[in-house]
């Protein structure tokens, strides 16, 4: 049982590491956010659940921890993406298109 929990935790840690690596390699803010703040969500969930399996008495608090992470994380990354777009940070040259820029070009302050 403890072994299973430890393996799941290791998997979660590796996913967090991949997220950090993605944030290191990606070309612009939006793609960094894609890997950085959301691949890490699943990673941290797995890490916590592994601990919960390894130590069965803690499962209540672990579930709450996962719940808090899953509620708060998307709100913050959405707010940051919106702010990055409105403060005039451009997408990388690799991008295909930008419908938001086409529809609301005046909202962005380019200073």
């Amino acid at each position, binding site marked *: 049982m403890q072994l299973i929990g430890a393996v799941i935790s290791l998997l979660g840690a590796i996913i967090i590491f991949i997220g950090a690596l993605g944030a290191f390699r990606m070309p612009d803010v939006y793609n960094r956010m894609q890997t950085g703040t959301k691949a*890490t969500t699943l990673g941290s969930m797995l890490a*916590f659940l592994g601990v919960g399996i390894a130590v069965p008495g803690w499962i209540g608090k672990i579930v709450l921890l996962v719940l808090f992470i899953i509620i708060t994380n998307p709100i913050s990354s959405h707010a940051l993406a919106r702010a990055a777009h409105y403060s005039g940070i451009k997408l990388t040259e690799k991008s295909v298109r930008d419908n938001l820029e086409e529809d609301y070009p005046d909202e962005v302050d380019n200073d």
Partner: protein
Amino acid sequence: MDSITAIIFNTAFYVLMAAMALAFVRFIKGPTSADRVVAFDIMTIAGISVIVFISVIAQRVIYLDVAMVYALLSFLGVIAVARYLEGGL
């Protein structure tokens, strides 16, 4: 905890430390402020995981409360910087 389990847990711990260091490199390099906030966010999540692992090593359930405070409040800092960047604070 037998030895194999301990080794696997320790490996997970080292991997988390490496993730933290990598995010910090992005923090130093990041061309814009938004990049730095992304790096800060990754460091926070890795930090919460580190706290949970510390509580496993120390065998104290009460340390999880600290992780809960972080999980519930860490998004405030990110939202604050975001609202500052878009001019709405």
